[in-house]
């Protein structure tokens, strides 16, 4: 006999197409912010993006990065704190483009960011058209509090994997836990399997 909350009927919000909203999530029109510290503000003339492979490093300046082919992406995003936002539109450079240019080949990547954040991801989750380094949102430059000048965008995983203020990808042989993962969040973070916390 499963538990029932006495007197709770629920007031399901507009979840749109139920097939689009993972279990335990609700749809919001807002764009809430989740981060652990002050918002970094790196000037664009000091900003670089790097793919780091051991001692090797391929680096783009902001101008070089923005000269790479970019795409407009419309996706649903799902935060571990339970909001989902549908049909968000981003502009970004495919991670495929960056890893191919760096001739990178490793089973895992660790995204590293201003502020010291990191997020670990299997390489197969950031390649094949599944992930971007996003610099625009809704046709505007990405707001610093949402991760600008650029953040990772990996929409099929919980949104903490879409690391804000990203500055590069370090290639890894092992799945080394990142910032939130070290504090008890799930190592992989699939919203459709509700992988919120370690052990889920």
């Amino acid at each position: 006999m499963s538990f029932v909350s006495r007197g709770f009927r629920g007031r399901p919000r507009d979840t749109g197409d139920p097939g689009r909203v993972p279990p335990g999530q609700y749809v919001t029109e807002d764009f809430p912010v989740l981060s652990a510290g002050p918002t970094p503000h790196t000037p664009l003339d000091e900003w670089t993006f790097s793919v780091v492979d051991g001692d090797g490093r391929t680096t783009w300046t902001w101008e070089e990065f923005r000269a790479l082919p970019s795409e407009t992406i419309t996706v649903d995003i799902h935060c571990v704190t339970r909001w989902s936002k549908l049909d968000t539109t981003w502009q970004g450079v495919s991670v495929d483009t960056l890893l191919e240019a760096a001739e990178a080949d490793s089973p895992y990547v660790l995204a590293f960011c201003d502020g010291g954040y990191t997020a670990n991801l299997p390489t197969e989750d950031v390649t094949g058209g599944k992930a971007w380094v996003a610099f625009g949102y809704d046709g505007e430059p990405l707001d610093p509090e949402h991760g600008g000048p650029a953040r990772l965008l990996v929409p099929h995983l919980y949104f903490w994997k879409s690391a804000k203020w990203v500055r590069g990808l370090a290639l890894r042989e092992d799945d080394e836990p990142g910032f939130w993962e070290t504090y008890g969040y799930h190592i992989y973070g699939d919203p459709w399997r509700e992988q919120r916390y370690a052990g889920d």
Partner: protein
Amino acid sequence: MAGTAVRGRLKPLTWQVATVAEAVDETARVRTIVLDVPDWPGHRAGQHLDVRLTAEDGYRAEREYSIASAPGEPVAITVERLEDGEVSPYLTDELRAGDGIELRGPIGGYFVWDGDDGDPLLLIAGGSGIVPLRAMVRHRQRAGSDVPVRLFYSSRTLDDVIYRGELDEVGDGIEVVYTLTRERPAGWTGYNRRVDGDLLREVAWPADEGARAFVCGPTSFVEAVAEGLVDLGYPPARVKTERFGATGS
């Protein structure tokens, strides 16, 4: 982000049915719910927990709430009713002593204060962002710590101040400074404006005192405070933040 790495827990967090021991109105819109949790592993000041409500037809809604009680005290959450909310009105208006409620936790290992490093503690709260900071204040008191604490708390009106009676009597070593942003009672001697860089310069310790700062509140509030502290010279790694959006019910 600098900090001591804590290994992720190995055991999964499982749902369990807790019993409401007591429900206490804090303000017209805010209630503290004290819980009897059969299998609670203990928590640290600043952590949160997940609540899950299930309707008779099986429909479920889950939310996260900060833990309002100190380590070692019965688990409690303090909930603000959001008028368009789905979960918070149930918790503030419907739930009563003796009811069961499903939860799991504790969750989070970064926005926590264990009180063992001796650094002054600067706590800055906006609205119901006071909840995890109150757990830190209580933890300091229970642990017999003499760490200096300064709590700066921004509310709309005096009637919106949560834990007011308790905060009026926190005792030596803990300073509580209020600002009321919308409405002040006659004779109000606290601050009367929204937090900004100038106000922070008055209420925050100088950066060279080596304080640790915990900031919790709505996003715009936390952005302003965190940026203001960095401008005052606080190292970003010493400013820990927790934010909630307008819709998180």
